């Protein structure tokens, strides 16, 4: 059964009701013969271990009140080994755990014993789980449970989603045709009250900091009991937190919470929050999910909402009560974001969802699962193939792909079969697959899971070494741990560069092993902004609504004056795109020629488009020099005079944007793309080719890590259809490269491109043009420079 209900409706408890009923009326058939022999009755699986712990507390209270003889336990990565062993031998009635722990439990000899009695599985926050590879892993675990525990029934708990039917399929075994669970939808929640901040300040043309509205955001925090301030990236959180404290004359208790802060520090914030001691928390999506943080009465969302469902879940964080309206204020950081906020508010009012469609199961996750199966009871390939296809994401898995995966797990799946004697799993004389040696099992246990974080480095605060001593000066070891930071960010730094981390400005000193040494900097402004656009691009749904809004001049009345004027100017100087057309503007500026287009498909898809277009422009002898992308537009600059080339038919826009760029051009680019290499790396790790954690003395990550880039290069050349490369390409379709979306867009605009040759920049082009060279200007100076640049560009854009 799939139970869909908004936050605060009490769906978690509802999910446990059948369990409590069955366990409290003896003699229950669920207990097996004799009520003394305890057996596992219900599994609860949630994406967060904190959530599992939280639910255990909430469950124990009513159980104690009703004096029910029910034992509830949690099992997470933090559970001591002794208790884990006890749980296997004397299972509780209800076990609360995570998908990874679930996979571990299944990958053992006693899984059939442990799960044979299982009657119910409760899957919490299902909408969040199914969008990732963790969902694939969970689906495969369910497939296994359906075989081990035929009497088991599943209950999925989910926030409102766009396609409940496909989510319902996840909960029941698929056998040939599409089966689906019953859906129960709880309605009746008070509609949220969402508004856009009507700023008194001038709306910026570009940027994501919303610094113009800082005072107004501060006032909102001051006027409410507890406000959650959501931003889209860690660095934005850092920056905003700093800025708020700079003007915090009332000394309001404002805290910071994001995923890369040290765990202890995060726990402290969470406790203060629950105790009601905080007035505001600046946070990223690390606070998006479930756990109840007490009395939040206002959600402030800074910057682009990105998607309607995403926004609704964030808003649900305010006021965890069903009968009271949640309140939220959206703060757009620039003019385009005003449009996005406007359509997002409309979407929320219509309760329109835009959660992504269900994934098709990843092959690297399947490889991990196959290895896990071999760690448990030996399996027959035929039976496992049938079992795996009962999982909704793998319902359409071909036998060839499955066999490829088995082959990969056994000997690497290389056309040159040289690794037979090093096989990780082998067939016994009955044809059943089993692990070749205990070391393989141990390595599986250490590396289970699908969350591959960016390579992270620990950040330690040390005293600054003397200036000018060069790279040979010694640094005091030890120091306070501030948290973790992405390795690729540090790789772009030179010793002495300053950046914001953990709420303070620090100077990069050195990298030793996997630790980054930083010292406290006296600078007021960090030299290197760590802005990396958000992880999530603008949803296709909101993008379409923005295009419709632009197309509907009457709807412009609902926009702030500054934005309406901006659009009117665009209409008279160039053109405002119709909903289905794409405008391409070309104009000269400072000795170069610019081509700006407006696909509205999110930064990731635009970046991929930019890479491919510059290759083509190069071939067409337009001599491109560079490009920049934001969520709405793409600007390319070149030496060739684009306007004249198009006029003289030396550059054909239909040919330039032809979807065939997704063929050879894409392949050639993928060969060297760093994003593709990162995608490949996580597939290599999830599939078990490369281990993340090692046994024994092999401690230092840097000593044992093998560069997956080298593997990628070699494999691509010698076995381009290898299962790992196929897994990586499948990820690239939706992940960092967003190729599928690009492909849909190219099909949409085919034959609908309107060219506007201009003699200077248009008003609509100003925001994306301001992104040019952004990374070269820093901190406060950057804002001034930006403002100055903006004025220049705007003046130019307004000229007739």
């Amino acid at each position, binding site marked *: 059964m799939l139970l869909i209900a908004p936050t605060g409706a009490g769906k978690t408890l509802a999910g446990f009701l059948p369990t409590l009923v069955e366990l409290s009326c003896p003699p229950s058939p669920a207990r097996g013969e004799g009520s003394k022999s305890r057996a596992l009755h219900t599994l609860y699986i949630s994406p967060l271990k904190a959530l599992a712990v939280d639910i255990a507390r909430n469950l124990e209270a009513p159980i104690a009140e009703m004096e029910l003889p029910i034992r509830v336990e949690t099992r997470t990565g933090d559970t001591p080994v002794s208790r884990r062993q006890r749980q296997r031998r004397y299972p509780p009635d209800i076990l609360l755990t995570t998908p990874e722990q679930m996979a571990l439990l299944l990958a053992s000899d006693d899984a059939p014993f442990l799960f044979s009695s299982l009657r119910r599985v409760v899957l919490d926050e299902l909408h969040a789980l199914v969008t990732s590879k963790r969902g694939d892993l969970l689906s495969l675990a369910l497939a296994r449970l359906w075989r081990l525990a035929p009497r088991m029934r599943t209950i999925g708990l989910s926030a409102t989603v766009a396609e409940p039917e496909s989510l319902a399929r996840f909960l029941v075994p698929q056998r040939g045709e599409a089966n689906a669970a019953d859906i129960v939808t709880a309605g009746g929640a008070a509609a949220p009250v969402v508004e856009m901040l009507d700023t008194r300040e001038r709306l910026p043309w570009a940027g994501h900091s919303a610094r113009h509205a800082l005072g107004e955001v501060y006032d909102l925090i001051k006027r409410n009991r507890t406000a959650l301030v959501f931003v889209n990236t860690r660095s934005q959180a850092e920056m905003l937190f700093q800025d708020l404290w700079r003007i915090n004359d009332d000394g309001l208790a404002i805290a910071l919470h994001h995923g890369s802060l040290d765990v202890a520090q995060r726990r402290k914030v969470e406790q203060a929050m629950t105790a009601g001691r905080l007035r505001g928390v600046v946070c990223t999506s690390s606070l998006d999910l479930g756990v109840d943080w007490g009395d939040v009465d206002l959600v402030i969302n800074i910057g682009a909402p990105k998607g309607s469902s995403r926004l609704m879940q964030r808003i649900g964080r305010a006021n965890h009560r069903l009968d009271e309206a949640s309140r939220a204020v959206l703060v757009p950081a620039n003019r385009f974001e005003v449009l996005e906020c406007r359509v997002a508010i409309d979407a929320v009012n219509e309760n329109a969802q835009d959660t992504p469609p269900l994934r098709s199961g990843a092959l690297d996750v399947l490889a991990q699962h196959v290895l896990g199966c071999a760690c448990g009871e030996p399996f027959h390939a035929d039976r496992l193939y049938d079992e795996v296809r009962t999982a909704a994401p793998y319902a359409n898995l071909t036998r060839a792909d499955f066999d490829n995966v088995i082959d990969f797990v056994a*000997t*690497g799946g*290389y056309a*040159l079969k*040289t*690794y037979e004697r*090093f096989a*990780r799993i082998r067939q016994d004389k009955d044809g059943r697959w089993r692990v070749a040696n205990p*070391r*393989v099992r141990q*390595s599986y246990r250490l590396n289970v899971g699908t969350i591959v974080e960016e390579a992270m480095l620990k950040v330690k605060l040390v005293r600054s070494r003397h200036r000018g001593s060069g*790279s*040979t000066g010694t640094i005091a070891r030890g120091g306070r741990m501030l948290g973790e930071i992405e390795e*690729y960010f540090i*790789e*772009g*730094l*030179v*010793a002495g560069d300053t950046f914001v981390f953990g709420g303070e400005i620090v100077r990069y000193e050195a990298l030793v092993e996997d630790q980054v040494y930083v010292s406290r900097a006296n600078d007021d402004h960090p030299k*290197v902004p760590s802005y990396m656009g958000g992880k999530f691009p603008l949803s296709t749904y909101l993008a379409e609504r923005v295009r419709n809004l632009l197309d509907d001049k009457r709807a412009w009345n609902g926009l702030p004056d500054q934005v309406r004027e901006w659009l009117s100017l665009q209409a008279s100087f160039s053109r405002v795109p119709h909903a289905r057309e794409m405008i391409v503007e070309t104009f000269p500026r400072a000795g170069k020629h610019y081509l700006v287009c407006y696909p509205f498909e999110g930064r990731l898809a635009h970046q991929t488009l930019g890479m491919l277009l510059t290759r083509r422009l*190069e071939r067409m*002898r337009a*001599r491109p*020099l560079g490009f920049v992308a934001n969520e709405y537009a793409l600007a390319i600059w070149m030496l060739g005079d684009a306007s004249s080339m198009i006029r003289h038919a030396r550059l054909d826009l239909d040919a330039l944007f032809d979807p065939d760029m997704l063929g050879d051009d894409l392949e050639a680019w993928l060969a*060297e793309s760093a994003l593709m290499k990162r995608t490949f790396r996580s597939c290599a790790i999830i599939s078990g*080719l*490369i*281990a993340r954690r090692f046994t024994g003395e092999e401690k230092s990550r840097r000593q044992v890590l*093998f*560069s997956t880039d*080298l*593997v990628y*290069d*070699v*494999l691509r*050349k*010698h*076995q381009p259809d*290898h299962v790992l490369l196929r897994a990586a390409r499948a990820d690239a379709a939706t992940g960092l490269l967003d190729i599928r979306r690009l492909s849909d867009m190219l099909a949409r605009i085919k034959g609908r491109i309107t060219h506007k040759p201009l003699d200077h920049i248009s008003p609509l082009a100003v925001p994306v043009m301001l992104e040019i*060279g952004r*990374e*070269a200007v820093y901190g406060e100076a950057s804002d001034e420079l930006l403002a100055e640049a903006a004025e220049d560009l705007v003046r130019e854009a307004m000229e007739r």
Partner: protein
Amino acid sequence: MIYENDEPLSDSDHLLSVLAINDALPGSPLLVAAVEFVAHLSGALFWEQERLLVVSDLHLEKGSSFATRGVLLPPYDTQATLARLATVVAHYDPRIVIALGDSFHDRDAHERLSAADRDALAALQAPRDWIWISGNHDPALPSDLGGVVATEVALGGIVFRHEPTGEVGEIAGHLHPKARVSTRGRSMERRCFASDGERAVMPAFGAYAGGLSIRDRAFARIFSTDFVAHVLGDSRMHAIAASRCC
């Protein structure tokens, strides 16, 4: 952006050329103790006068070496490395080839060579003198591999050995130098030759050979003064001051 014959530079070459003292295509002159060598884009070093080609740290059979420990890396590295070696050998047609140590990733690696790879190697060795310098990964090489084995070779004031000592006129490998450059928030990393005009450390040639940053202390011990990284780009060599690398 620099255009030559209307041939666009790759992204990487463009980024590297921003910092380069000098770009060269596809081999760049490299001076060691007054002897002029050519540092080739492939990572090989050529001595015109002696028609002598040097490659270092081939690490053949590194893939299968990992496989023995349960990490099933693609077994194509030896084939890939030998194919690249064949190309550069065909280009220069040297009289002598020196493999500067760590030619094999472990002591038993040569036993795991496939028949095809063995033949490819033999074809390279046949018409010329071939010298295996022993390295820490392959301290003892069997006699059936062809060529001669030595711990070091001295020729015309130049000494070839695996591990660098910092001696004048020394050409060594072992360290797998790589250079990372960053400009304007972008950053990339490539293999390189490291040289100060008196001695040089060669990049690893093997497909699976990783690298050590030239800013590591190990290089400061060999080069007392500032030195130059001859960075292998996509289509050309870029000479960049080591102090500009990070």
